[in-house]
Every structure is written in C-alpha cells, then in structure tokens.
C-alpha cells in the first residue's frame, strides 16, 4: 500500500504500559483492550486495504469516562482516534500505532424519544436504522439512509455527514440533526444546539458534521424524526443509453419534481445486482433509473404518470411502477445491495464517491471507460443521480500483485476528473486517508491552511485523528503566524475602487 501515515512517536510507544494502567483506572478492566489477538478486530474499518494495530483500544460507557480519557490523552500527549461502527469507506477510523482507539460501541442507547417535538436523543453508537426502528410504531422515521444503515452508527454518520438514497428530498445528516454533545481534546464537554433550531452564535454543530473525527468526540446526538409519507411508490425506468437515463433525471427535476429517491445504475451494476438478488431489473438496458415518489396516494399516482411520461419522452424502453410495498422494497433491494453484489463478481472492489454537476455525467462516464481500458480494470457504476453523487466500483483482485496499486491509480484518475468538471472528491464517504493526498486537486494551499486553523482551534497539538483528511500536518504555531503583505493603503486617494 502506498499510504504514508504520521510516524509513530517513540515517547508515546515507550509509555504504553503506563497509559494502559491509567486507562484501567478510568474504565473497567475489560473495557481496555491491549492484547494483540483482540486488537486485531480493530485493525481496519470498511476500507480494508489499509490496516494498522492500534496502540490500545478503550471502550468507554459514560460521558465522564470519555471526558477523563480525553483529559488523560492531553496529559500524556497521546493521540486519539474515535471509532463508531467501523463502517467508514475512507479509512476515517483507521487506527494509529501510537494512538488510543476510542471505540464508542457501548454508547448504544436511545435516550429519549420526544414525539411532540419530533426529535430523539440518542447515543452515538446507536445504528442508523435502529433509530427508525425505535420510532416506526408511531409512524416516524429518521430520514438519512446510507446503504450501510443496518450497521453504521449515528455518531459516525455525523462524523461523515452521511447521505443515502433519500437525501435529495430529505437532506443529509447535517440537515437532520438538532443537537450534539461533544467532548473536546482535554476533556471539556460542550453542548451544541438542542431541541431548538439554529445556533446562538457560530454554527459549530454544522462544522462538526462531516469533520471526520478531527475536532471532537461526539457523545450524544439529537436527531429530527419525520412522519413517514402516507404512500411511496417506486418506478423502474430502463434506457438504451446512459445519456438517455441522465437526460431523464434532468428532465424530472426541470419539471419541478423532487422525488424521494432518484438513483441510476449502469449495465454492469444492473446485472451484478440482479444476479446477486433477483429484483426484476431490465438486464438488457444500458442504464436504469430508480425513482421513488412519496406523498398522498393521489399525489403519488399523479406523479407516477407524469414521470412515466417524461421517461417515455426521453426514450425509456422499460417502465415499471411498483404496485405494492413489497415490490417497492424489491426495487430498492438491488440498489441497496449493489456494493456486495459487485463485490461478488470482484473479487475485490474499491468504491469511489465523487460528486459531479449532473450535466457532466456522460463526459465522466466516457472518461471512466477510457480509464478502465488504460488501467486494465473493470468498473461498475451506481449513482445518486438526483444529486450528482457517483459511486464507481473499481473491480480488482487483492491477491494479484500490483492490482491494488492499479485500483488506487484508477480511483485517483476518476476523482481528478470529477474535480476537473466542477465536482468534488467525496460526496458522502469522507476524505479519511483514502482521498487525503488528492486534496490539492480541489483546494489551494491557503484553502487547506484555513481549514487546518479551524482544527487548531479545537486541537492545537494535532492529537485527534491526525493523518486523516489533510495531506500535510502543519504546526498550529506556524499556521497562526500572520504574514502581512503590502501594508498601508496609499492615502489620500480613497475610495480606490
């Protein structure tokens, strides 16, 4: 692997025994994991190509314990890597050899459901889907639904600003949370937001969301819960070309319709998904659009007709509307299982996550076909078409020497193309370690320094999850220096502009 992480600090490694002893004064004995056999379980997240044994794993159960661990880390100058369910696809919770891995899995309780205020207070280790399960008997749900929702934790969702197939209409994590409790490096506990809307000063809750565990440790999340739409129906729309599918997506939105979900898959993904679990996808189409419409029954029926008509106008060769809840879920089953489905033909895959202006789709897909030939690896595409978030799945064989490097190079080429056409490196999976070294393709040095100064306001010694997101670790003292160029405005010829 070509990834370079910060060099483990000898001073920390030399103090390991003392650190473990101190951690065991804070936590029950079994909540501190220090034996290699058990540490192995934590050596990677869902980006399995990068692995590293943590220095030690700490499993806190209470907020005071987290606070004490963060104070201890500061006192002993030890690094800390927060981890939720370990489903990050960008290596956000890749351990450090000289860092405590702070695993939040024991924070697994729904603390309060407040239906009257349409919110729930939950601990960060609660799985995304478990929130919806906890409130569904009253007709409510939590809207962001990443494909990993059965396993991924809400704390991790906040860390990565997770999305999902319904976020075109219902927003991302950042639009669906009301409050956070976080512990700063050093142990201070801070409340951001609550059950009310908007912040009294800088929107630090918004800043925390998507900060990839670099700013603070999340110990509680207040999420908004919504009433489920009365009716939801799915539409499968098959097209003879990828361009037809992309044009159809644009035409739906141009007509003023924001569907609950609007997804697209290319031929390789369609066939892989349908092979993995028969879901009735049209196997002879070059692109498939899955459109979900929700609202009142009459509204949904009306929109199904409107969207079907748009699709026909865009050359759809296959149109099928769901007639039951089972059928709607079946439409989604293929899409939601697309990653494992592609994995089954892999044998391994690398999932990219660029977002592009939707109008550039055809150009980007063509570019990918050329890259596929160049790198000698296959690529399947699933696409949150409504919001331009692309998930190319690069197929490789980890057992074949050189394949990992080829996949990494292919992935980097794809992301560079995304940025070139006006898009971004990552839509919902995060930068982590995976895209860290590509940050310069999107940001200037000044842009990155500005972001790092924000990091310094939280964590001036770079102890919290260092080596992620930023390609270089600049010292905060140097970042803080002012270089005043120019100086005096020549007076008195003001106004000058």
């Amino acid at each position: 692997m070509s990834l370079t992480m910060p060099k483990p600090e000898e001073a920390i490694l030399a103090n390991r025994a003392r650190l473990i002893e101190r951690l065991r004064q804070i936590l029950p004995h079994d909540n501190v994991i220090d034996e290699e056999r058990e540490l192995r379980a934590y050596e990677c997240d869902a980006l399995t190509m990068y692995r590293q044994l943590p220095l030690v794993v700490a499993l806190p159960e209470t907020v005071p314990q987290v606070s004490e661990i963060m104070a201890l880390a500061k006192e002993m100058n030890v690094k800390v890597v927060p981890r939720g369910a370990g489903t990050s696809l960008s290596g956000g919770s890749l351990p450090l050899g000289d860092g405590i891995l702070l695993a939040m899995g024991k924070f697994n309780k729904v603390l309060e459901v407040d239906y009257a205020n349409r919110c729930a207070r939950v601990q960060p280790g609660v799985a995304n889907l478990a929130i919806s399960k906890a409130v569904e008997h009253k007709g409510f749900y939590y809207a962001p639904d990443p494909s990993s929702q059965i396993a991924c934790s809400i704390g991790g969702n906040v860390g990565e600003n997770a999305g999902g197939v319904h976020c075109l209409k219902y927003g991302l994590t950042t639009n669906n949370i009301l409050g956070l409790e976080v512990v700063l490096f050093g142990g201070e506990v801070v409340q951001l937001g609550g059950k009310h809307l908007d912040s009294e000063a800088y929107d630090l809750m918004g800043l925390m969301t998507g900060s990839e565990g670099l700013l603070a440790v999340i110990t509680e999340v207040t999420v908004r819960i919504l009433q489920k739409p009365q009716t939801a129906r799915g539409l499968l729309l098959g097209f003879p070309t990828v361009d037809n599918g992309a044009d159809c997506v644009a035409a739906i939105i141009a007509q003023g319709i924001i569907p609950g979900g609007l997804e697209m898959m290319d031929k390789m993904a369609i066939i892989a998904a349908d092979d993995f679990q028969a879901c009735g996808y049209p196997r002879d189409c070059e692109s498939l659009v899955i459109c979900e419409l929700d609202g009142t029954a009459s509204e949904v029926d009306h929109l199904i007709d409107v969207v079907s008509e748009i699709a026909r106008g865009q050359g759809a060769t296959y149109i099928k509307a769901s007639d039951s809840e089972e059928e709607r879920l079946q439409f989604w089953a293929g899409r939601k299982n697309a990653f494992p489905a592609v994995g089954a033909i892999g044998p391994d895959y690398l999932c990219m996550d660029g977002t592009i202006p939707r109008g550039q789709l055809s150009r980007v897909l063509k570019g990918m076909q050329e890259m596929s030939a160049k790198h000698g690896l296959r690529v399947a595409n699933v696409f949150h078409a409504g919001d331009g978030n692309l998930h190319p799945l690069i197929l490789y064989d980890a057992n074949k020497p050189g394949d990992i490097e080829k996949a990494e190079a292919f992935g980097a080429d794809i992301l560079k193309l995304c940025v070139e056409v006006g898009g971004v490196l990552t839509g919902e999976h995060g930068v982590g370690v995976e895209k860290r070294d590509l940050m310069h393709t999107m940001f200037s040095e000044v842009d990155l320094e500005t972001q790092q100064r924000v990091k310094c306001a939280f964590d001036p010694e770079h102890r919290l999850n260092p080596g992620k997101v930023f390609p270089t670790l600049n010292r905060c003292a140097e970042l803080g220096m002012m270089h005043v160029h120019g100086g005096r405005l020549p007076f008195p010829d003001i106004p000058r502009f």
Partner: protein
Amino acid sequence: METLLPKDEKDLQEVFAAALANEEPVDVVGQGSKSALGRPMIAQRRIDSQAMTGVSLFEPAELVLTAGAGTPLREIVNLLDQQGQQLAFEPIDYGPLLGREPQSGTIGGLAATNASGPRRIKAGAARDHLLGFKAVSGRGDVFKSGGRVMKNVTGYDLSKLMTGSYGTLAVLTEVTFKVLPKAETEETLLFTGLEDAAAVAVMTEASGLPHELSSLAHLPAASAAALPDGLPMGASLTALRLEGPAVSVAKRKDDVIAHFKAAAGEPEALQGLASERFWAALRDVVPLARQDAQVWRLSTAPTEGAAVVEAIRAAEVPVTGWFYDWAGGLVWLAVETAPHAHAAAIRAAVETVGGHATLIRADDDVRGVTPVFHPQPAALAALTARIKNSFDPAHILNRGRMRDDF
C-alpha cells in the same frame, strides 16, 4: 466614515492589508438592510460589497445558483421566479421591522445572517442551502470552501461557519446556493379563537401527522389585529400551511380539517396569493413591527414556546405583543423599551427549557450594553473565540458585532 467598494478578492486583500497594518477595524455591508442587527460596531472604514455583483451561474435543472455576494436579493428572487424556482428557506426581509426599505439586502447578507422564514421547519435555513463560497478572511487570505454540488464532504463544511457569522470571520465575495422548485400551489388553514396553550397543542399534533405541513404559526388576537389589510384579523389565528401539487393539497386539506373538526372547529382557508401574503407578513414580523417596542427572537423546542412566554410575563416583563412560528418553537416577542431590554428575565425563561434569545430590535445604546446574542457557557464561548481568532486574529472584521471581546 470612508466607504470602500472592492470589486474582487484582490481589492479586498489590499483593504485588509492596510487594516492589519494600521490595526484599524472595518465593517462590512451590502445594502445595509441588516446593519442594525447585532451590536453596534467600531470601525473606521466600511467595505461595501455592492461592486461584487452578478449571477455567474444558474442551472435550473441542477438546482444551483452562484452569485457575487453583493448581488441584490431582489434580482435573484426575480431570476428564480422566471424559472418557477425559489430560495426555499424563505429568507426574512428585515425592512419592516428595522425601519429600512423593504425587499432590500444582498445574497451575501442573507448568508451572513443565516436568514430563514416560516418554512424553516421543513426546508431549513440559509445554512442548509449554502453549498459553497469564496471569501477573504480577516488574515487577508483568499479562500474557498464547498462547491456547486449538493453532496460534498470534502474538507470541513465552512459554509456552516459562515452562515450566521455576521461577517466576523471573513468577507464573502461569492456564494453558491441550492435552489428549489416552487410548489405548484399553496393553501393556508386558519383556525380562530384558540388560546396559546390550545394552539400549541393543535400545532404539535398537526406537525406529527403525515400531512407535510410546511409552516405552522399562532397569533394571539392582538397580533392578528396588526396584520396588513385584506388578511383576516380580530380573533386569534392558528395557521397551517399546505404546499404541493394541487391534487395533494386538496386531499391533505380535507384530512386536516376532518382531523381537527372536534378540537378546533371549522377553519377558514386562504388560497394562493392570500396565503403567500399571510406568511410573508409573519416572516417579516409585520404584526409587531409598528409597535414602539424592543423586539426579541426566541428559539426553543416547539412545545415550550408558549410556556416561555408565560414565564416571561409571570416575571413581570412588560410584554406588549408576541406570536409563534415554527409550530411554537420560534417566538417573536415585543417588550416595552428599557435600557437592558429585560434581557435577564427573558433569557432566564428560555434557559429553563433550552434555546436562545436574540435581541433583534433596540437602539444602538441598548445593543451596546446588552448582549444581543445569547451568552454562551464558558467552554463554548472560549472555543468560539478561538475559531474567530483562526480567521481574524487581529479582530479587524466587524469588531464588536457579535461579542464585546471580538
């Protein structure tokens, strides 16, 4: 005071270089429509953003618009309107409340104040729609964050920091917003004669139904009486807004009416333009604007709004008017003018249940001595100051606007 009209980031850098060298703060305005918000500022020079104008990108099918920060909001609203689109967060027009020209202000000012409106509970605020920006920080650094796409977690979400920072971190030069289609139709149901507590109960129940109400508000009789001509007035009004395709609005309207028939009686309906005018009046705080009073904006959990007003009145604060938006979670409160604006009692009542209180309208001398923004606990206040310093260590930008220490 001198006014400078920078036309791009480079001009701004020059202004900041001078400000840094001379340690002289500058204040930043667009059209000045919101300059009476926040604490009075201490500045020798004014940066006027109105030379940084123009829509550089508008792609209706991709739901995205990019404009210079000084672009008049009115221009953007008109442009969107031609395509049947809108800024869905329904930004407040402070004109009526602050005694400025109505429908003024710039897109940058709207971002800097995190503007929103009655649809906030469903569609979010400016914070939820700002996709990216370009700016010059108080260090004189030209930087960007975000992009033009809706889904983006590449680097920290600095757009969130900029919205609601009142120009204290950086001067925005260009902003990119997510835009959305307007609803095909809208209709508002008005229930009359409910007391505050009963109205909150109706709003709480209504927002727990699957009818996708986009706004819920309650005006006590006195506030309802101050609505503009042509809108129903007299008794208290509890308003529920339905938006969407006509076929859907009609169905949901029937369902809502049937659901509340026993508890709240038969509502009156406002259609189309009348409905739009009603919510615009609430958005712009018209019911309290004409009063000779100080005005507060309280944000709390929806079920607590009425209790907070009750507690404030019980503490003998001379309240002269109020109404609720956001299903009860937003309280606009008018109080008799006082040098301290009754801040202690109002904030104590809000803190009991959680939330914040912002002093929106009061004279300069009052806003100079009474914290305009809700004071933060020590750890959070210190963190906020460190963030301020990371962007503007010499405190040259809008000094004093948010806090007396920066």
